[in-house]
């Protein structure tokens, strides 16, 4: 029994310690800074204030936030739309071929993201591959503007975040027993019913995990939208980066970051709650 306790305690301790030291403490540093006065030389000085949080409520900052939110929502929905069927079909491929095909999903992502984004630029630019094809095939008279538009931004975001949707979905769908589905079909359920009543509820944890892993990081992403969208709008990621680097306003940047995390935590709590309800309603 001692050995049992040992395993359990070690597992808990290692995790708690790591999270405490490398997540909680840095987070606390950020929270503390967000309540201090800005200082042009030392980044911040030990004078408490809540002015940074008050300054956050401003139409300009709200626009920055809603704009990022739109991109993140759009990206999450698009990756889900592309990734769910993909993960499903992948999980139905022969058992032997599955690991190879799964690896093939991730291999492209071992190339530097900057280099991959440049490859997308080569494809989408005015004198690029896609436009040349369109013109040669007679589908367009002159080059179509793709680069530096929202289309390019979404292509780039979906491209770079797709595996974060596919992998957790696959991990969940893969364990679905196909005999279960056959049984449902035998009992007279239509394909749609099988999907809505069996597959979807059982895969919800994967949908949740995937959406979280796409949505949250995409809020902070700005490199891809800047390179492909032409940086004409400001996103939360740039906004916070500029506070830290360009204007040296660390307390304001910290406040923005803390606020961002708080908003997202509450959004996630609602999301998880709704998902749980939904899960219960389809599986009484």
């Amino acid at each position: 029994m001692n050995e049992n306790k040992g395993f359990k305690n070690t597992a808990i301790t290692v995790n708690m310690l790591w999270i405490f030291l490398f997540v909680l403490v840095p987070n606390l540093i950020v929270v503390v800074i967000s309540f201090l006065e800005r200082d042009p030389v030392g980044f911040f000085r030990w004078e408490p204030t809540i002015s940074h949080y008050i300054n956050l409520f401003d139409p300009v900052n709200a626009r920055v936030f809603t704009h990022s939110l739109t991109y993140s929502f759009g990206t999450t929905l698009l990756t889900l739309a592309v990734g769910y069927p993909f993960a499903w079909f992948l999980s139905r491929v022969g058992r032997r071929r599955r690991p190879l095909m799964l690896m093939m999903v991730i291999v492209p992502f071992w190339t530097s993201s900057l280099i991959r984004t440049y490859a997308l630029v080569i494809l989408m630019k005015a004198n690029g591959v896609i436009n040349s094809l369109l013109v040669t095939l007679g589908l367009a008279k002159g080059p179509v503007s793709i680069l530096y538009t929202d289309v390019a931004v979404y292509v780039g975001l979906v491209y770079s975040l797709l595996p974060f949707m596919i992998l957790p979905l696959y991990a969940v769908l893969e364990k679905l027993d196909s005999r279960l589905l056959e049984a449902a079909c035998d009992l007279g359920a239509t394909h749609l019913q099988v999907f809505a009543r069996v597959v979807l509820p059982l895969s919800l944890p994967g949908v949740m995990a995937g959406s979280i892993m796409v949505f949250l990081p995409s809020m902070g992403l700005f490199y891809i939208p800047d390179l492909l969208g032409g940086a004409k709008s400001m996103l939360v990621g740039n906004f916070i980066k500029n506070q830290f680097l360009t204007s040296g306003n660390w307390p304001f940047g910290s406040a923005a970051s803390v606020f961002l995390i708080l908003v997202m935590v509450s959004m996630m709590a609602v999301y998880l709650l709704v998902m749980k309800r939904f899960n219960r309603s389809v599986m009484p």
Partner: protein
Amino acid sequence: MKRWVGISWLTAVYAFLYIPLVTLMVYSFNQARFTTVWKGFTFKWYIRLMGNQQLLDSFFNSLTVALVASVIATVIGTLGAFVVSHYRFAGRKIFFGLIYSVMMSPDIVMGISLLMLFVLMGMETGFMTLLLAHVTFCLPFVMVTVHARIRGFDSMVVDAARDLGAGEFQIFYRIILPMILPAVLAGWLLSFTLSLDDVIISFFVTGPEFEILPLKIYSMVRLGVKPEVNALCSILFLLTLAAVTTAHFLTKEREK
């Protein structure tokens, strides 16, 4: 009909994922120095790459960090996911909140706050600090992936094993681990990928002795990314592809 839809969907997504890389490989043979317009075929970037020791060194550094960090993150993260789904302990909810906060923190905030922590702890920046930071930002991705898979399991299996006298470690190792292996693998893959490509956090927490590839590539932007980088990326891409396929066929042989 259904089969046909599946095959075309898979093909389309793989095409989407691979077309930019094929473009990259084609352009790595481009004469033009700035890789925008096709100017003729050449091998010269590959030859120059072989002489670029700094670039190759930083690649090996990146690979080392990515391998070590992703393995550590996978071990700790898998245990963590198991712990939160099987044991009740104080601070479980807070634990989750903190895990998610890592995914939400903008890179710049995380980089700066971790560097402040290391400075406070009196640690010199270098391989160790870089490794600690990488494990930290990889952890949540492992935990979320594995947790999603563990949650669906019947707790009766575990109870039955416990009744039959299995210890906690045995339960984890003999029952849970084999069942969640695909998710563990997925978590490791995501960690390795994230670690291999991180720039902003790494910039702050690494030291002068330990340069990594993404940092070198991003800071080339000022003078234009060198075509040698395209050559390096193409070689690496082909090597990984070859390694993955070989590994697949080797395991297949063994199964026979």
